[in-house]
């Protein structure tokens, strides 16, 4: 079996790939910024059985060049980088890694939730500067999670794991989802229309995938519905939250703070409106990537592919019914 990795600007992915024990023959293709692969790169995929996709696009061009292709496998959960129609036309299964990162991403949301709602950045900054009384006054403005309302937008695997954690912290959970979530009773969560969720939540966590429906969903209008004392946390794909609108809301004090992990364009560029935004905590797409868990996810993806290609075992997490 031979595989090709498609990625762009992910040295930590290369780091992990290099450490897979007994890795089958593979090539790593650094996808160009404009998504158009070079002839040399296309030649490299000619004999591969599988495309393992970090964040390099899977488009008609690369699919046509991979003449031996049997399966397309995302190493992560998000599917927005896959042209599912083209993959289906090509006649191969497209799979993702749904669910393997949900706990660690939920932990990251909880880290932002606790540290923002309780005003930690200000507490730590005042303390390190020996401003003891200011730190204690800032703590007075902090909110206990207990009894506060958390609004989860997108009750998938990650949303549910976050709900479990917030429920253990005795938060009241409301959620917005296309359909009622079967897990809602386990975490005493109530399904609400989006606007009502936004208008009443003390913190809003956006956990939805990026789709045509969710693109731009948290725009100026949505942000204006939120309480000025509320916090927005989004470790979901860039493009769901309107970055310029968020910057404006933070600067105008119409939102108490935000925690953001993904951006419309990655790597984050200095001209992104969120760079320098007040009351914001920013991370570099770190939520899903951890030393041990991410390695496990990669091995899972490789095994899903290997079992199909070498043993004919039906792959898991097939997205396109093939």
């Amino acid at each position, binding site marked *: 079996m031979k595989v090709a990795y498609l990625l762009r*600007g*992910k*040295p*930590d992915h290369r*780091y992990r790939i290099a450490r897979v024990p007994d890795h089958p023959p593979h090539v790593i293709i650094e996808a160009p910024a404009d998504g158009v692969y070079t002839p040399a790169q296309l030649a490299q995929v000619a004999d591969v059985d599988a495309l393992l996709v970090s964040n390099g696009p899977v488009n008609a061009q690369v699919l046509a060049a991979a003449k031996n292709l049997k399966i397309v496998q995302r190493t992560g959960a998000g599917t927005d980088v896959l042209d599912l129609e083209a993959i289906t036309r090509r006649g191969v299964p497209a799979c993702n890694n749904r669910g393997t990162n949900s*706990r*660690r991403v939920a*932990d*990251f949301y*909880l*880290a932002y939730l*606790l*540290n923002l709602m*309780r005003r*930690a*950045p200000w*507490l*730590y900054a*005042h*303390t*390190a500067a*020996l401003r*003891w*009384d200011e*730190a*204690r*006054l800032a*703590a*007075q*403005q*902090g*909110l*206990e*999670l*207990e009894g506060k309302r958390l609004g989860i937008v997108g009750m998938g695997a990650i949303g549910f794991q976050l709900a*479990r*954690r917030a429920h*253990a*912290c*005795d938060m009241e959970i409301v959620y917005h989802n296309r359909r009622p979530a079967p897990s809602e009773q386990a975490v005493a969560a109530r399904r609400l229309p989006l606007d009502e969720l936004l208008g009443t939540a003390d913190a809003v966590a956006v956990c939805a995938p990026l789709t045509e429906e969710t693109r731009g969903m948290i725009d100026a209008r949505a942000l204006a519905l939120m309480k000025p004392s509320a916090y927005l946390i989004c470790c979901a794909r860039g493009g769901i939250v309107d970055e310029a609108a968020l910057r404006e809301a933070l600067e105008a004090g119409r939102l108490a703070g935000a*925690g953001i992990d993904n951006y419309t364009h*990655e*790597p*984050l*560029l*200095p001209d*992104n409106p969120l*760079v*320098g935004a007040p009351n*914001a*905590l*920013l*991370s*570099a797409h*770190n939520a899903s990537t*951890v*030393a*041990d*868990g*991410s390695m496990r996810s990669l091995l899972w993806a490789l095994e899903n592919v290997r079992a199909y290609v070498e043993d004919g075992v039906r792959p898991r997490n097939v997205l396109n019914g093939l």
Partner: protein
Amino acid sequence: MHRGRPESVARLPDEPDIEKVIVEGSTDGTYTPEMLAPLADVEALYVFNGTVNEAVFAAAPKLRIVQRGGVGYDSIDLEAAKRHNVFVCNNAGNNAVKVAEHCLMMMLALGTHIFPVHELTREARWQEARAYSKVNFELRGRTLGIVGLGNIGSNLARRAKALEMPVVYNDIRDIDPEVLEATGARFKSKEELFASSDFISINTPLTPETRNMIDAKALALMKPSAFLICAARGNIVDEAALRQALDEERLAGAGIDVFSVEPLEKDNPLLGAKNIILSSHLAGVGVDTSERGRKRAHDNIRRCLIQGLEPENIVNP
């Protein structure tokens, strides 16, 4: 009574049935006659902070109850109180959730490295920020060791369980089986706890037994990948030893809310340490906790003085 907390005193609402005098507390135990004079007619002493010792009791012949606004009572001489027939009461449990949340907050901040990552990301230093992925680990399956499984410790344990972190604990008391059942916490000796935990949270009161409990010897038992959290009392952790352990990377990081000398002073060895998060003895501070605590404290004083009943949460029976 307070020392250096004018904002706390200013926020005290008037209690229509309780007359208030404000007394300046001492932290080193020395009181001048001027400081003690207002105590002459006082029947109840509500203590924000400040030492309550023989000098104070001797100056307050009508005193019947010393009521702490918070939970710790290491600054109150219980023997002296007993000699003068004065109840000493605290506000046990009032801040349990708040402090547990603070410990969890620090654990998560340290484990996910959100603050150093933020410093890099806000300057668009993307690759450096992503490099932290190599040192972040899943919390699931990582052991939390809690020293002191009381109101605060058990609240922390319950939350850790939702993160699928196994919980081990050490406590000198027998723990309610219901708490053990609800949290899944397993007993370990202190040494075993230090050696096997990935996160260690100190949630004991300050007593002669716990003073300097976390010394160089204890720190040496801990994994180099472990994180230490202390939101209990200063002087439980040896600050110089902790600084050294962090400098030498024999500990991955620490979150500390309480110090040997408070307010925090510029010569404290923890200032400027690597991988440390510091807060100003505020794990239990918040407008909701303060109001609730004030009400409970004043109701307890009423219970004792006005209703003539034995007060609750007596710490010197």
